[in-house]
């Protein structure tokens, strides 16, 4: 089951995944299992599929939300590394399903193993519900100075998505940052320079290279 789902995800056959999930309960378990995969693209695609399911079949998604949130906690004995992505995609699609857990992952901004995905989730949710994430803008600004390129780049990307105001001075150093990071957008992994992310976040357009598909 998991192997078949992986194939469908890699081929972006989301409609078939939705059909399967509605027909066979084991598909949803398989969709949970894919979230532990070592392939970042696959996990992101699975999150996209969960988001689509949240639209087409909210009842089947609802029960997984608290499970996903619990797995972020180290007390759970699990490694819910896919959770921030799924929670964000479900919240974007149907906030009613995720309202109790949507902010849970923001409590894990200190967990380095989760951080990149937590930031991605904040960006995705913040893009459509900016008011929800206003309280963590200051935390995100601090992360712009992080030593790890992935983290400072992703924090800048999230601030840009949220449309955060008053970030000019914190983000300025990144306008010279030539490092590139990979970000999942439009169902593919894109390699993007931190400089161009920073420019976008500041609303400067037309001066960075276009993101290239990785």
């Amino acid at each position: 089951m998991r192997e078949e789902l992986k194939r469908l995800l890699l081929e972006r056959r989301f409609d078939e995944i939705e059909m399967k999930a509605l027909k066979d309960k084991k598909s949803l378990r398989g969709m949970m299992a894919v979230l532990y995969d070592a392939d970042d693209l696959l996990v992101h695609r699975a999150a996209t599929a969960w988001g689509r399911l949240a639209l087409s079949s909210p009842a089947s998604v609802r029960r997984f939300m608290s499970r996903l949130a619990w797995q972020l906690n180290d007390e759970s004995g699990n490694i819910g590394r896919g959770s921030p992505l799924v929670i964000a995609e479900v919240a974007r699609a149907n906030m009613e399903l995720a309202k109790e857990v949507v902010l849970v992952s923001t409590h894990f901004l200190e967990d380095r193993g989760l951080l990149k995905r937590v930031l991605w989730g904040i960006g995705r949710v913040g893009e459509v519900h900016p008011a929800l994430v206003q309280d963590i803008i200051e935390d995100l600004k601090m992360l712009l100075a992080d030593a790890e390129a992935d983290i400072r780049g992703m924090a800048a990307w999230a601030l840009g998505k949220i449309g955060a105001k008053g970030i000019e001075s914190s983000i300025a150093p990144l306008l010279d940052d030539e490092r590139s990071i990979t970000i999942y957008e439009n169902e593919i992994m894109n390699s993007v320079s931190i400089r161009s992310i920073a420019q976008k976040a500041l609303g400067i357009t037309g001066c960075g290279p276009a993101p290239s598909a990785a």
Partner: protein
Amino acid sequence: MEDKPKLDVPTPKLDELEKGPWPSFVTEIKRAATKSAMARDLVRQVEQSYNDRVGHWKHGGLVGVRGYGSGIIGRYSGKAEQFPEVAQFHTVRVNQPAGWFYTTKALRELCDMWDRHGSGLTNMHGSTGDIIFLGTKTEELEPFFTELTQKGWDLGGSGSATRTPSCCVGPARCEMACYDTLALTQDLTMEFQDTIHRPAWPYKFKFKMSGCPNDCVSGIARADFTIIGMWRDAIRIDQSAIPEYLGFEGFDLRRDVLDKCPTKCIEWDGKKLSINDKECNHCMHCLNVMPKALRIGKDTGATILLGAKAPIVEGALMSSVLVPFMKMEPPFTEVKDLVQRIWDFWEEFGNNRERVGELVTRVGLANFIEAIGLEPNPYMVMHPRENPYVFYDVDEAAE
């Protein structure tokens, strides 16, 4: 007696735990501490905990290996500056061989790996049955996992996953075994591998396999799904072996066997032992006392019980009989189908962190067995003779 290992740090509180006749975990940790810096800081931190009367472990973030969602439990020191070697002290669960049979070569291989990648301290075995490796750093997890799997071992389950199935030694060493517990454990472990390593359940799910009602793995009190060996024909009696028992000093057949039979279904007329098998409730007492004279029947299989949990804090539950008798032979299709039906129901209706036994209590046994497609049966009770459940359809009864 072997000399106690001497450490260069004073540990007066822990030393108290080395006194007395029993082996001491403190002695073992100190022994490891003569070779391992992690074990040394562990001794120091635990001594500190006894002084401060508080545990010094804390949460510190998720850890694991790529591709898996369970098997590693993150642990961090709350006194990392004082005890830097245990700043990270993660636990790794490794799937044990069925029945815990090892060659000495395999044991050496495991211990050598753990000496290289962790503190060297092990717990053989945890209550779930896994090999527990105590104490390693985050950076060592992937290299350890790579080496482990290259040598043919794998991680066990943790958290809201199927936990590593475990069983008694079964037919490998025990004449009471009514089915091959080792074969079933191996089969379930391989079949349900994905659910062990990639948690998708509301909560934990434990399988335990015992070859007979002696239930040496205590599944009845601890596991969500327990498969206990059972026979449904007659206990085999070797009348010629009875005189030998009668000759044992201190043995009294009436006092030690007949009077202790809970259903008083076993008789001795001075020459012949007889059992009214219809009344036997398979308590195992007579078979345990006279194993040479009495043997399990020939028509063997297993009873399936559901729904135990043994939490530390509150709300312990014992299992209830779900299937009184099922043949238990490879490829074990019937039992695996039943597991899938139970999972379908629990996965859909179980609340987060609700064990399957709690769900059955919440929705009612009658609703549950109907949902998983089993016929009601008077054996599906905890105390058949005292507290029978009565199954009837309200409308039918009214008619």
